[in-house]
């Protein structure tokens, strides 16, 4: 690369060469000569680009291959950490990071870290992509569970070896379901669980009472019945949904499909099954909430996740399905404050009386945040030390106390029983009934194409009030084709 750049500089600066060229092509008059120089600059520009390109590539390949230093003594350094922003608890997040910093600096004299945040999945992924492509980025990346497979596919993150796990207190120290999204198999784990995001059903107790419903639904038939009882078709609805969200649709469809014993993607991760009968059924069930059962307002057709949370907080929605703890601060400020409860949600598919064969009584998919070590970090061992601090039971407890996040280190719960007090008890139970999504890099593509297909139909429902199964099937088939084209 040095050569390429130097060459560029030389090309542009070399007046003799420029004049030489000028002389060759145009000695007619001054105007011509300058014209040629101008042209030369252009040629030089393009040439520089052409010269630089292989240079860039070669340099790229080189910058990445810094071997991991495995000296036993860690030299002090300043790490960088890239984590998700906690908008609901901004000051508490800073407080927590300060606590982590204090502990880390005490345990590793001379070392420290800086931290940066991302607010959206898009920012998270963009940073991952640019960082990996350039082989330059934060030492420690925090990813959501469904991004971990993509991060793994890129091959740019360190495998946490058994000895490294031992350093962190052993795999057994962690909430077991979480480890399912740490890597494709137990010897290829790249993510260390850092916080959990369990999904459960949230109900509006006041509305349940008003409708005379005694207990939360156990089957989806009961769910639909209860929801119907709470809907008046105007300003009170049994449930809400967010089909316009980029990610929400696949959450729900995955849940229904899993409870039916179906898969959205085959075991090789190379073939999508979005056009299967079960997938169509799962999608239809969800969309029917608006179109047929009329238990969710048609207004939901434009909802994104946040709109759904706000709607439930307004106190006019009976149940919110597959909801994480992220909504709690909102509910506590809204009309629903004091009237809501997290409960274990229905598991028996609509139209069935018991779970079918191969079906899983899922409450949600394994969700939460994971810490990974960037392969091109120069301080991998120190990075592990930082992760060690962050996953210590004390910090995990602070994570719960300050930021209302679910801890993932088991000792936290035994040391601090309050981490399992309502609503966290239901969430804890729900977490135990979470199942991993397929650990394939292609899952991300499935999320997007499925979301688009659902969204198309949901819009039809929003505008016309109804949809056809054929249109749904066609949308899912096209989604599956796009998925196939992106995988191969």
């Amino acid at each position, binding site marked *: 690369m040095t050569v390429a750049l130097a060459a560029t500089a030389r090309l542009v600066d070399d007046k003799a060469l420029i004049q030489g060229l000028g002389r060759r092509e145009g000695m007619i008059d001054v105007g011509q000569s300058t014209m040629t120089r101008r042209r030369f600059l252009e040629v030089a520009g393009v040439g520089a680009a052409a010269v630089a390109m292989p240079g860039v590539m070669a340099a790229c390949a080189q910058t990445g291959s810094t071997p991991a230093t495995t000296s036993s003594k860690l030299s002090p350094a300043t790490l960088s950490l890239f984590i998700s922003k906690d908008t609901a608890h901004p000051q508490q997040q800073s407080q927590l990071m300060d606590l982590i910093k204090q502990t880390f600096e005490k345990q590793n004299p001379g070392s420290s870290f800086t931290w940066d945040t991302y607010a959206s999945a898009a920012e998270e992924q963009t940073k991952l992509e640019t960082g990996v492509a350039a082989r330059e980025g934060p030492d420690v990346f925090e990813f959501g569970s469904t991004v971990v497979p993509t991060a793994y596919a*890129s091959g740019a993150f360190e495998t946490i070896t058994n000895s490294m796990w031992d350093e962190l207190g052993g795999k057994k120290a962690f909430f077991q379901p979480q480890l399912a999204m740490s890597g494709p198999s137990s010897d290829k784990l790249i993510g260390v669980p850092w916080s959990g995001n369990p999904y459960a059903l949230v109900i509006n107790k006041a509305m349940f009472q008003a409708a005379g419903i005694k207990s939360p639904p156990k089957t989806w038939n009961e769910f639909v019945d209860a929801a119907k009882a709470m809907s008046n078709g105007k300003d009170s609805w049994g449930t809400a949904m967010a089909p316009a*969200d980029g990610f929400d649709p696949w959450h729900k469809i995955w849940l229904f499909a899993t409870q039916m014993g179906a898969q959205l993607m085959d075991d090789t991760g190379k073939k999508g099954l979005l056009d299967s009968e079960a997938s169509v059924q799962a999608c239809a069930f969800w969309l029917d909430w608006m179109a047929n059962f009329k238990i969710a307002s048609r207004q939901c057709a434009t909802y994104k996740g946040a709109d759904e949370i706000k709607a439930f907080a307004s106190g006019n929605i009976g149940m919110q399905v597959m909801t994480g703890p992220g909504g709690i601060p909102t509910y506590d400020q809204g009309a629903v404050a004091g009237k809501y409860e997290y409960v274990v949600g229905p598991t028996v598919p609509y139209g069935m009386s018991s779970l079918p064969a191969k079906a899983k009584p899922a409450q949600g998919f394994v969700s939460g945040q994971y810490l990974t070590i960037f392969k091109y970090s120069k301080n991998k061992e120190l990075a592990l030390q930082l992760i060690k601090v962050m996953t210590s039971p004390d910090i995990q407890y602070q994570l719960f106390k300050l930021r209302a996040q679910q801890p993932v280190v088991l000792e936290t719960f035994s040391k601090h029983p309050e981490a399992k007090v309502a609503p966290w008890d239901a969430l804890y139970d729900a977490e135990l009934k979470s199942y991993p999504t397929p650990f394939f890099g292609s899952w991300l593509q499935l999320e997007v194409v499925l979301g688009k297909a659902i969204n198309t139909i949901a819009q039809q429902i929003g505008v016309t009030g109804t949809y056809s199964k054929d249109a749904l099937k066609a949308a899912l088939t096209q989604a599956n084709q796009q998925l196939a084209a992106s995988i191969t």
Partner: protein
Amino acid sequence: MITPERAPSAVAVPHAPVRARRPARGSPLRAPYWMMTPSVALLALIVFLPILIAFYISLTGLNQYTIGDWLRAPFVGLRHYMDTLEPQGPFASSLFNSVKASLAFSLLTTALIMPIALGAALLFNQSLPGRAFFRAMMLIPYIIPTFVNAILWRLVFMNGTGVVDQLLSALHLGSRETFWLIGPNSLWAMVIADVWAAWPFVYLMSLAALQTIPGELYDAATIDGANGPRGFLYVTLPLIRSTLGLAVVLSTINHFNNFTLPYVMFGISPPEQVNVLPLNIFVNSFVTFNFGLGAAMSVVALAIMLTPAVLYLRAARVGDESR
């Protein structure tokens, strides 16, 4: 640009600079190319080189599996172009839709912006008490970050709770539950949002162009009885034509390329009417990691957008080289 040939014959234009000879050619004045070297160098490094790399990427299967070592991403030739351009390709309908959406969006916004912006420029070019204040206020929509603008209009157009629906129902003009963010209305929601946010750009350009017209031209025109609309048509318009042309082209291109607004207003699964090309490209490259496909789509977008650029240049060149 002011040449005798281009001055309208209906009105005499006094003081218009008359060029005795063509510039540069045969002139003893050497062109100071050093003045453009920094610009050219920067553009080469920061714009053209990345474009070349992106073009290379469009020929590879760069995705989440190969991004860690992207130089070794498999070379797939024109496959991504086939996928998007062949009628049977899996992304053909998606691309076609996006091109349609982008064209509709950029042309509509530009068509709406031009009169609004030109009107404001003409208005605030005249003497008016508090003119500096007005001029600065006009720029407010432009200062509001696009991200905020998108959220603002999403709230305004939200069905049920948005201002538009509340207003419509209060005035009994429509249902409170009219959908603006999905279906065909979504295009209008986005157009309105973008017109409001972006019109100051053309306004500024027009205002600056109006500054180049010497005041005495108007005096002369007034004496000739050509004030008001005729003055505008015969004096003002011809003189700012090239700037306006540039404004039309740039506005069309900028709107065609607007990514943040549709992305924030509609997210990654937008209604097809607003699934504009940049959004489609972003989703394909950065959300689903299909960088090769995204790059190929970008190259197609680039090819499309060169059309107005070249058309403009042809028109502009006529003016430049009038003899």
